[in-house]
């Protein structure tokens, strides 16, 4: 069991990272990453929704008729998103304002539907929940990496704290949309370079062996 959990963790966070390897959930990954605090809140919200909707869908997997499963899944996801939205609105009104519609757009985030379709439908509840949880963690990590560069270079702050010892000209472009595209493109480039040579090497050594 421990081995399986470790596999689930490494698969979701690294090998099949939802954002960088599967290219899912890009909309919010790009939109909220100009500030690290926003990205963290968004990531935690998405992790919560993915974990619990995977759990619920897995619990109900034998009850939902196959033909209407998409709409049922969407409704389950939407209910959890309403939880998150109300919670953020009540406790962090400023962050809720700057996140705008993107919290509600977790409903149409492909990661959750993807996990539900690919994993939660065929697996027992607890592994499904873990799978959803670590998919969310992988998403959060990518968001924080992008947000770190955008906030540090664009505003000169990290999590809103001023980094006064590093004084440099601020990169206005980092605050604007194009930087998000460039950064995620570069990250995808780096990760696919890390994975591509390894795979060919493995197959080569496999042939030699």
């Amino acid at each position, binding site marked *: 069991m421990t081995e399986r959990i470790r596999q689930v963790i490494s698969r979701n966070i690294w090998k099949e990272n939802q954002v960088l390897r599967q290219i899912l959930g890009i909309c919010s990954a*790009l939109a909220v990453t100009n500030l690290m605090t926003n990205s963290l809140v968004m990531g935690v919200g998405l992790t919560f929704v993915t974990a619990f909707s995977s759990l619920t869908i897995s619990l109900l997997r034998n009850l939902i008729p196959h033909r209407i499963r998409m709409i049922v899944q969407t409704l389950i996801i939407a209910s959890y998103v*309403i939880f998150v939205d109300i919670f953020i609105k009540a406790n962090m009104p400023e962050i809720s304002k700057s996140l705008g519609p993107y919290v509600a757009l977790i409903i*149409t985030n492909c990661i959750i539907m993807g996990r539900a379709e690919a994993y939660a439908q065929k697996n027992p509840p607890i592994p499904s929940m873990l799978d959803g949880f670590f998919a969310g963690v992988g998403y959060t990590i990518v968001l924080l990496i992008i947000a770190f560069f955008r906030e540090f270079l664009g505003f000169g702050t990290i999590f809103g704290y001023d980094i006064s010892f590093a004084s440099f000209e601020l990169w206005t472009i980092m605050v604007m949309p194009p930087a998000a595209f460039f950064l*995620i493109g570069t990250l995808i480039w780096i990760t696919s370079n890390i994975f591509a040579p390894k795979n060919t090497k493995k197959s080569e050594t496999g042939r030699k062996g």
Partner: protein
Amino acid sequence: MFGNGINPFVIFFASILTSNMILSNFLGMCSYISISSEYKTASGLGKSVTLVMVITNMINYLVYKFLIVPLGLEYLRYIIFIMVIAATVQVMELAMDRFLPDLHVKLGIFLPLITVNCAILGTTLFIIIRDYDFLQSVLFGLGSGLGWWLAISALAAIREKMAKNKLPKGLAGPGITFIITGIMALAFIGFSGIFTIT
């Protein structure tokens, strides 16, 4: 004169150029990245998104103003919106199949995909947050759809041209698509200042 003092036509042009759904609001990225390798398909998807966006935003606006607000169901609005979108797409598909079979052959395959396109739900939420009136909502939906269509067609055209180019290892596919989109977004920043909506 208008709901919140913004001329609806300013909203229309701004939603195409300065606050483009893809290039400045990052909505509808999933299908934008995955269905943009062929110009014809991309353009077809763009047309159906525009159509669905106008119709669903109209319905969602009316549902919000005359059903959700009077009944005090604001906390259920996301569920209601997503149901309206799913139902509208379903009805549109049936109606198209019955009355416009040619169009259904061309656009029908995209319709089920559009239900989960975040640009559709996104425009509805922007309308609610920014408190638009009916005409503003319709023109905002139309403009956002056209802007989405413009962006995906431009990207698909560029990708078709560079399909055979040699790229650094690992950059082919999504990596270069994002970088092209970044350059497109950079170009669209040139429009900023002509129209502004927030």
